[in-house]
């Protein structure tokens, strides 16, 4: 049992995929501890297990073995409903493809995770307004995602991730679908959030952006090979 006071503690995490008779070890004995307020970049070549690790961190997937403590709570063995609750309250996601819902307005997209908490409407409205303000998108609240540029969509996605005040932000290649200018802008935004106290875990294969983090973790063939200061 691990308990070192970290916000995230992974110990001996393994993930094995079985397809037909082939066993694929996506992660092997991963040890990762992220302190509150820390900004960690997970990098590595394509297929090294970055996304699998992020999925386990985000409770989108479960490890085949190992322990996972999130804010002191053992979460590896939670049932689907409890995992959904933890995801909703503790984790904010930022995806490479933005993954905004096209049929909802910008404000409705940001409000969406809050609606799953049964939060009163007034409070939801306040939080949406604050989140929009933080990412500088208040003027686009009633627009639909298709009416925004890629950079703007990612800013909205960041607003959606932070609106619920999660314990940690998980960003999966947040600049992957953006040009360099918009990519830089999004990285600046994440840095700003980090400076204001946000804990961030970011998957990236771009070394330029890994340097925005406090610490860089490198994966190779599912194993953590190096942990360096960015």
């Amino acid at each position, binding site marked *: 049992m691990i308990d070192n006071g970290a916000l995230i503690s992974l110990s001996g995490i393994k993930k094995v995929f079985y397809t037909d008779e082939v066993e694929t070890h996506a992660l092997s004995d991963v040890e990762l501890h992220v302190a509150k307020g820390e900004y960690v970049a997970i990098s590595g070549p394509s297929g090294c297990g970055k*996304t*699998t690790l992020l*999925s386990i961190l*985000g409770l*989108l*997937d479960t490890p085949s073995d190992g322990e996972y403590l999130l804010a002191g709570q053992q979460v590896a063995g939670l049932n*689907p*409903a409890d995992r*959904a*609750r933890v*995801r*909703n*309250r503790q984790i904010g*996601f930022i*995806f*490479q*493809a933005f*993954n905004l*819902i*096209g*049929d*909802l307005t910008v404000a409705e997209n940001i409000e*969406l*995770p809050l*609606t*799953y*908490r049964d939060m009163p409407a007034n409070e939801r409205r306040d939080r949406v307004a604050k989140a929009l303000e933080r990412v500088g998108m208040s003027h686009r609240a009633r627009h639909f995602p298709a009416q925004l540029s890629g950079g703007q969509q990612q800013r909205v996605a960041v607003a*959606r991730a932070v609106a619920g005040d999660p314990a940690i932000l998980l960003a*999966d290649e947040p600049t992957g679908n953006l040009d360099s200018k918009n990519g830089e802008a999004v990285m600046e935004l994440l840095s700003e959030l980090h400076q204001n106290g946000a804990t961030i875990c970011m998957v990236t294969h771009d070394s330029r952006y890994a340097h925005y983090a406090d610490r860089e973790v490198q994966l190779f063939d599912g194993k953590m090979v190096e942990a360096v200061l960015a």
Partner: protein
Amino acid sequence: MRNITLAVRMLLKTPFVSAIAILSLALGIGANAAIYSMFDQLLMRKLPVQEPTQLVNLSAPGPMPGSTSCNQAGNCDVIFSYQMFRDLEKAQASFTGIAAHRAFSVSLGVRNEPVTGDGMMVSGSYFPVLGIQPAKGRLLGPDDDQVIGANFVTVLAYWFWEESFGKDPNVVGQTMVINGKSFTIVGVAPEGFNGTTAGNKPKVFVPISMRGEVQRFTRWDDRQTYWIYLFARLKPGVSIEAARAGINAVYSPIISDVEAPLQKGMSDKTMASFKAKRVLLDPGARGQSSIHREAKTPIMLLFSVTAIVLLIACANIANLLLARGAGRATEMGVRLALGATRRHLVTQLLTESVLLAVAGGIASLFVAQWTLSLIMSIMPPEAAETMAFNISPAVIAFSGLLSIATGIAFGLFPALHSTRADLISTIRAGAGQLTGGRAAARFRASLVTVQIALSMGLLIMSALFLKSLMNVSRVDLGVSVDGIATFLIVPRRAGYDSARTTVLLTQVERELKALPGVSHVTGGMVPLMSGDNWGNSVKVQGYDCGPDVDCGSRFNEIGTDYFKTFGVALRAGREFTEADQLGAQRVAIVNEAFAKKFNLGPDAVGKFMGEGGPPLPGGGENDSLNVQIVGLVPNVKYSQVKDSVPPVYYRPWRQDPNIGAMYFYVRSAVAPEQMLGTLRTVISRIDPNLPVEELKTMRQQVKENVFLDRMISVLSSAFALLATVLAGVGLYGVLSYSVTQRTREIGVRMALGADGANVRALVLRQVGWMVLIGGAIGVGFALGAGRAARSLLFELQGHDPLSFTIAVVLLAVIALGAGWIPARRAAMTDPMHALRYD
């Protein structure tokens, strides 16, 4: 509310697809709602009276020697004599009361305007037993039917008061002429109450003791004249079994001690069953009507058909939602990642499907109304006026419930399936790929196979009904009905006595004959091929009518040139002439079935017969052989197009001293449709107060006689075609989706050397399998259904090979048509584009 807003947005996002889905549902739910309207009105609706479930209908099946007269309220097993009614009414203790009723045709003088329609003769206990209150004045009560022929009082039906009197508040106390006699209006029945017999919509209610005044009836004391329908209300706390025992304690001694000794010439066996007769009690909440029995099979059949149409529509929408769900896999994954539970997502998706169904449900009311209009247009006008199927609150409630149930039914699987998304792959790919895609594809293919099976079954059934209708239309009627117009006049109800009636009918005959283009005019008491029957017991020279020997025959009273008018050549003898009148030798013409039944042989003409049992056209009881047969005619249709020709004898109406009504037939070189107005003008010129009823062409009369066959054929064919088109659309949708999903595979195949024909075959093979499996199941289903629907088929087996073949070919063509477009599209795939695209 958020769910509903998003659901509306989703529907509007793809307006064409949503419109097709709503239209499919509207057709499916609307067809069901229309049939439910008939089901509700004919089979379910309780009388609008106090505690209708406490009402019971009385019957006493068994031998009824004597005269029976039954109508829409039920067959001749459920009627009683007037004396038996009074005996039961007096002595019974199980009911709060026993009520009697009998429908009759009325000619009314309403504010100097002649009006015809239905009336109802009711006992004084009728309204008290029903426990209803008048809308105006009072209803008839026990004091109104104690003395035969003494109470000239009437109660108006509410709808008639509204329609003909403009809801005149001073209607009570006014007088109204009913069948030539003046009656005082004492009240108006409550709104919505239209009597107790579905299929009859009385305008007026008169005391049953007034039958002698509104009809020529005198046999009040005759226990062998059966004509009254009875119902009763159970006393509180008395079970139906106890009531049955109680009423039979009264009935049995009357049968044994009073009525059995009156029977003459009855065999021991028949006497034993006569004495064993018992009163039966059946639930009477819906009133008394033969429609309940007659309509049950056709309505249940149509209900099954429309349910299948709806199932097919649901399968289409389920397929559509599955495809749409695949497109929204990323959205579902994101929502799950953001903390939504599966319940949240299923609720959202079900809201969308239920909203779709509710929209379809609202639109279905228009489809239902249209379908009901179609049904009403097929029905005979008299029946359509009585039934007036409509979109009642019950139908709206049914549509609403069906819509919600439908929405859940077709939305549940897609909702559950679409929310099983693999979070990681869907979020990463953002390409809308669902895991379990193979399962979904299997499910979609299964749905289409089921649709094909159901369509196959329906197509076969509709082919059977169509062929049956063709058989009906090819029936040799034995008469030529083209070029003939017909109508009814009832001088008796307009106040004519018999002598004046004879003069009038003769005048009408002459004036019609004088019309330009008219070649023949004749008349008959029993309308040809209308479903009406008149029967009588006869004695025939050389034929022994002993106990238990059926000596019954249908009869008609006809005018001169009757058979010439219908183009029928006599086998022997002559037609009636104007010389065959009262006082002359009583004469008859018989058909070959009559001659055969009574062993008259080919030499029937010249032999004698006699009529027994009331009513006698010659007047009075007469058992002697005093009627000479002067003509022999071939067997021509009498009452029903589909029935075999019964033995019939014809008598000249001029020898009937009590003639009161006549159906005229006018053959003309002018199209009969154009004659109708002229005929009305002629009668109006002779007597403006004499209503012309049932004015139509004989071709129309024949069509109305087989309206049930036409209705079932038309509706089942329309629904089967609709089902097949829906199944075709479903097949097209599934194949299109499958081709889109397999674009890369097709590209690879083509890159490896497959040509267009290979790719087309790949897709069409899929169609072939589905048609083969679905078709085989459908044929099996149709074999069973055909056997069950045998009673509705005319001169046709439920496994008629031609009907099956036509349906199979039609379905195969439609399926191939639906599959061809996606197959062609697949064959045109550009391999480079397909591989790059993926």
